[in-house]
């Protein structure tokens, strides 16, 4: 197993940082403007559940196995009360792992060489009273008696092949980064509008990045 070097934690790339900041600012602006509109609606305001979930990449590293860089990562995934409520109400949750391979360039902006998204679907089946964790990329699925074990299983990534070393330029320096997020893409459109404003549905870890050892 190749050794890994931890480079930085919680220090995302500038471009993405900017875009995230913009998105955040935009959200707060839209929230402020439309708050009056929401007030006009006859829906009763719900009391926010106290539990705030969070996604965090605890550690991540790649190791080369037979010329393929494989990911080893530990994630901490805690669902918010709203997401948990939705899950237990039969709403499947989609959790994405975004993985990016970035070529570091000295004078030019860094180049995104490859990106991989691994999508998991977490579902509660009331009949069997088990949580089903489905890898939508591979189609594999496992069932778990508890949510904890399902999330724990999901948060323990071992030997996930990321990229063939032959595809990378020899001599170039590469950086990798990983994040996990709760995707609301699969929900009906009206719900997505609503979830867009709710922080409990904005579960997304910071980018965790490290240098690719070759």
């Amino acid at each position, binding site marked *: 197993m190749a050794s890994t070097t931890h480079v930085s934690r919680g220090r995302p790339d500038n471009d993405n940082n900017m875009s995230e900041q913009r998105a955040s600012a935009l959200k707060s602006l839209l929230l402020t*403007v439309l708050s009056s509109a929401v007030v006009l609606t006859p829906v009763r305001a719900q009391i926010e559940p106290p539990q705030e979930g969070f996604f965090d990449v605890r550690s991540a590293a790649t190791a080369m196995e037979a010329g393929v860089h494989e990911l080893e990562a530990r994630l901490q995934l805690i669902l918010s009360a709203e997401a948990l409520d939705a899950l237990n109400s039969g709403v499947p949750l989609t959790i994405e792992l975004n993985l990016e391979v970035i070529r570091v360039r000295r004078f030019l902006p860094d180049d995104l060489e490859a990106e991989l998204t691994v999508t998991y679907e977490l579902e509660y089946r009331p009949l069997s009273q088990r949580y089903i964790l489905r890898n939508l990329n591979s189609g594999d699925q496992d069932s778990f008696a508890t949510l904890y074990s399902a999330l724990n299983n999901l948060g323990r990534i071992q030997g996930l092949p990321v990229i063939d070393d032959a595809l990378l330029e020899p001599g170039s320096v590469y950086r990798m980064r990983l994040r996990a997020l709760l995707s609301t893409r699969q929900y009906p459109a009206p719900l997505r509008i609503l979830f867009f404003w709710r922080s409990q549905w904005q579960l997304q870890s910071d980018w965790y990045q490290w240098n690719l050892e070759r």
Partner: protein
Amino acid sequence: MESRTIKRAAIGILGAIGVGLVLVALFLLGQTAQNSAEFDRAHIVILLINVAGVVVLFALLVGNLARLLRDYRNNVPGSKLKARMVGMFVGLAVLPLLVVFYFSMQFINRGIDTWFNVEVEAGLDDALELSRAALEMQKRDRLETTVHISDRLQNVSARQLIFELSKLRRESGAGEISVYDRNNRIIAMSSDQSAGSLPRRLTDEVLLQVRQNRPFVSLDPTQRGGYEIRTAVPFGDVNRPDLVGILQAHYPMPERLGSMANNVDSSYSDYKRMVYLREPLKRAFSLTLTVVLMLSLLASIYGAFILSRRLVAPIQDLVAGTRAVAKGDFDTRLPTPSRDEIGFLISSFNDMTQRLSSARREASLSQALVEAERANLEVILARLSTGVVALESDLRIRTANQASGAILNVDLENRIGEFLPDVAKGQPLLEQFVDVAQVHLNANETEWREQIVLRGEVGRRVLTCACTTLPGDEDHAAGFVVVFDDITALLQAQRDAAWGEVARRLAHEIKNPLTPIQLSAERMRRKYLKTLTDEDARVLDRATHTIVQQVEAMKEMVNAFSDYARAPDIDINLFSMDKLVHEVVDLYRAQESGIEIALKTDSDLPKVEADVGRIRQILHNLIRNSIEALDNTTDGCIEVSVSLAEAYEVEVVKIVVADNGPGFHTGSVSQVFDPYVTTKPKGTGLGLAIVKKLVEEHAGTIEAENRKEGGAEIRIELPANEAAREIMITKLPGRAEIRRERA
């Protein structure tokens, strides 16, 4: 003007962008709210567009509202109408929108609520419970089967294990049975799948539970959509935990049972999901509807502003145009907005201002013509030697020309607007003039003609006077105009001409017989004096002497007449007045008549241009006249002064001869220059008449008056040179005739 157009264009573009954004946003919102794979990426943009539309419209509305309020408070024309129209439009647009909004909200809420039913929910719960119970039995059976398999494999040798395992799997109906040692390594496996398939791995959950010596059983959905029962039990000698492995068996559910379980599971899940999503869906639809409402509301209010502005703009233009016309700006033209009634109104307004403008142009043209005519008239009046005085009906002076002032000896030009009788106070000539005029006016005579004789200190003036009514106009009421001419000089000239004619005839008719009379008398005397007695001779001598003497006197008189009538041509030369005066005065001083003659001349008296012979005669006549006047006076004194002065704006030589004699008779001062007017016993009465004639031939002026301290004074002003004479001829009435005569 330009910046206002740019501002308006900018607001228009902003408004168009706002409305465009709203439409795009509404369209996208409608599209994406139904379904769209790209919504996740697009919905931020869509919301941004919506919000931008709302912000733009809101900003425009605030600006418009602020302007409307400001205009309303400042009473800007059209603002009240605009406010009313905006209110009306907003009311028309907002009320239906709010009604639609209310019913839409109700529809959404109730529509979503109708999806749910308590009985359905209870049925689903029951179905789930029932399914669970049924499956629980299956799980228990399968677990027992697995335990049984484990027991049967206890005493099987490792070599026989595979065969026994396959046999038991087939007997039990399991899909896969695998055996793991205490290190979780696989020892044996039997599967109904084709060779080469990998055994299922042991999950943490299975390991944890079995290692605690508890059997594991679970119902797992398969990837193919069915269900399987997974079981795991300890395998080996239970008394030696360190040697115990795990036996895991998977039992597929019968297809029909699996399908039914799946239906129950998915129906229950779907229903629960819908229940969960009920409120968020309501909220999401409400939010969308609210955004749409806000956009529509703001857009319609803004539309109300635009519409009312467009409707009111021509009216505001019209008000501004009317005000401009009221202030006298007839060149105002308004843009014609449309062909409707307002367009017709504005077109009529433009026609009106055009006509007003051309009417004003014509009026100012005719006014200019009138002004020009008036100016011409004033010039003519100023140049007229005839006096013209226009009076209001209340005898205030409306206008008067220069000649009127000169004739009446009052500066009437600068007294315009004053009451004529007031102006006349202290002015003897004007007083007499006003008296005559008032007699006619009091008798309501507005058209009259009369010759007036005015008596002044320096003589009398004869005026021919005509009065007529002056028609009134918008500035003035009806009045009178009095036109008068100073015919004194004319009359004098006529009189002089008559006297000249008389003189010529006398000279001719009288002088001729005088010589024979004289000769006859002398012959008679010479012939008969010696023949007669002394007494008779004395009588004859006295008689013939008297005849001869009287004939001589008569001849002298006739010669004087002749001189008066036949003046030689004037001969202008440059000579020293100072020297001439001294010569003449010295001649009279030498006669030692007992009268003192004082002479006073300016030291800087220049040479003058005049007829030296006539000037000498003037001096002789004046001094002799004074000497004759002082005949019976002791301490008689004559003062002669010659000085340079300015009169009628030209340089004149002023000659004053004064004495301390009896002076003129008070009543005849004005006639002293007429022929045969004398106060002296011996005078011919022609001396001063000749002097006046000579002075007038030089275009000069002569005045006679009695001195306050006693005696007479005669003042003569003669132009010092030819240029001054020319000017005085133009300024003095009556002199032009003299000039013509001279020419």
